[in-house]
């Protein structure tokens, strides 16, 4: 899934137009407005806010999910399991960090580079954009399958090009736990870079042309102009892209779940939640404890983003 929200940050910071106070409304209009606010708010409350609180609450209980009477409070037992017993927890944390670093150091910069190159007057810019952007249209689940065809040990394109297919030297890219995280990250980057490219292209178009002109007149070369003038002028977009990268890394799920259900080297926090959540292996308390850990980590970029976005409004 894609992180969508932050993109409009720039617009949010604009000063709001003077708005009408409710006092000036008729009673009927107030009721109408109340309904217009009430329904979406109720939906949000029932489907987002209350479940969120419930996740936190459930993480302190044991519950078989069958009857509402079956709750047994058990303090921090579930957290003890998460932190001290589940062997997959710390690897999952590590993998999430690797995921973040890979996207942050390779995927996102690659997207920036593509955007900067394509923003210059280069022939066929639109065609290049279309190509790089294509994977963004695909679901990560599908990307997992498409790359399976590339990575397959004996039948995949990569090992065939390397000439190792069918020999003992052939690497099983998705099956070998020493490489499969990287293989999955390459596939994820295939999509991520195009996404960043489009956002950054839009950001670049918004930069006031005169400052570039000025820098150029001052004798700055292309690189200097970009790093000293353009990049700082795009602070809002940069924040958005950092936030997107962080949140995408925390949300990573579909692709590893499609590859091997997030096992054997592809453990991620989101997968651990689901492992203890669906099917016969359901242990609600433990699944919720994993969810809360993921929630707490996610709150860091979310709070940073929201405070930046809405600060100017208050």
């Amino acid at each position, binding site marked *: 899934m894609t992180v969508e929200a932050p993109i409009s940050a720039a617009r949010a910071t604009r000063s709001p137009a003077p708005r009408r106070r409710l006092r000036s409304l008729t009673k009927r209009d107030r009721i109408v407005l109340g309904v217009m606010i009430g329904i979406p708010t109720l939906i949000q409350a029932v489907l987002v806010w209350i479940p969120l609180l419930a996740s936190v609450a459930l993480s302190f209980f044991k519950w078989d999910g069958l009857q509402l009477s079956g709750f047994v409070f058990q303090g921090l037992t579930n957290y003890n399991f998460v932190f001290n017993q589940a062997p997959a927890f710390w690897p999952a944390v590590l993998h999430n960090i690797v995921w973040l670093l890979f996207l942050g150091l390779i995927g996102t910069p690659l997207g920036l580079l593509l955007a900067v190159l394509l923003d210059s007057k280069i022939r066929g810019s639109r065609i290049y954009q279309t190509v790089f952007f294509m994977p963004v249209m695909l679901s990560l689940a599908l990307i997992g399958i498409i790359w399976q065809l590339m990575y397959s040990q004996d039948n995949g394109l990569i090992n065939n090009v390397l000439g190792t297919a069918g020999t003992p030297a052939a690497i099983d890219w998705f099956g070998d736990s020493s490489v499969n995280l990287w293989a999955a990250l390459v596939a994820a980057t295939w999509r991520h870079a195009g996404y960043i490219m489009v956002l950054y292209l839009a950001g670049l178009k918004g930069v006031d042309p005169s400052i570039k002109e000025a820098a150029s007149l001052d004798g700055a070369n292309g690189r200097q102009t970009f790093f000293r003038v353009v990049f700082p002028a795009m602070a809002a977009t940069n924040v958005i892209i950092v936030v997107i990268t962080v949140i995408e890394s925390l949300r990573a799920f579909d692709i590893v779940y499609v590859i091997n259900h997030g096992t054997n080297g592809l453990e991620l926090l989101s997968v651990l939640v689901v492992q203890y*959540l669906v099917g016969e292996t359901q242990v609600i308390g433990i699944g919720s404890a994993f969810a809360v850990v993921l929630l707490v980590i996610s709150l860091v970029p979310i709070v940073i983003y929201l405070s930046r976005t809405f600060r100017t409004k208050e």
Partner: protein
Amino acid sequence: MTTTTAPAAARRTRVTASTRTRIKNGPGVWGAYLFLTVAAILWLIPLLWAVYTSLRPKADTDRLGYFSIGGSYGFSNFAQAWTQGGFLTYFGNSAFITIATVVLTLFFASMMAFAVSRFSWRFNVTLLIMFTAGNLLPPQVLATPIFELFKLIQLPYSISDSGSLLNQLVGVVAANTGFQIGFCTFVLSNFMKAIPQELGEAARVDGAGVWTQYWRVIMPLTRPALAALGTLEVIFIYNDYFWPLILIQSGNRLPITTAINNLQGQFLSNYNLLSAGAIITVIPTLVIYLALQRQFVAGLTLGASKG
């Protein structure tokens, strides 16, 4: 390279075009072309490889290997994958979930955005922040309680054959709507804020109530944002893998994005069929992309262009 040779005067008149970071003629520009071309080819390979594999009969690839040329080419894998995979059902489910979710989301989000952006009341910013925050969470965080909630909701069997919201397409629509409203509200409220306040005033002077202002005045003006956002949401919901995975129990009720995982098991070691299935799944998004690329990109970057 025509632009670089254009007269300086002409350039100055076309400010927006000419002041983009320009790569000057010389090794730099060739380097850029080389890099972009190599990258573009690498970018296309995974999809082209899938297309190529899907066009070849399994018998040929068994004989020659997948990394080969020769044998016959055709669409038989597509026909076989289509019937064997039951794509029609999956596409039907995807269409229902996607259309219902997008319509509901835009409707509710536009009402909320209207109320937040056109009126000033206590907590309106607080609510907007909470709406926005909800959409940024990893959905896994909400999954357990939503699952249990849907299970506990009792519905008459005449409406739901599970007696609850589980295993129902409407359940997936509800979860997706709840998750997407925050984002759409945020985007639309920013857009509506930019609509001059006087337009609403004029309508009010003419005796229009709040609903008329929303439906007759603001919504028509919001159409560009709704179109862009709608396109974006169609892709997001179509590509959603997670909620049906959690909420749907019967294989024949899955939307295509979640169902392809089952196809992977079903077409095991038949990469020809698997590729064909993958390509079939891609086609709707590709059609939307090529037809509405502008809308989609606009949706993604909505607001970001106004630095």
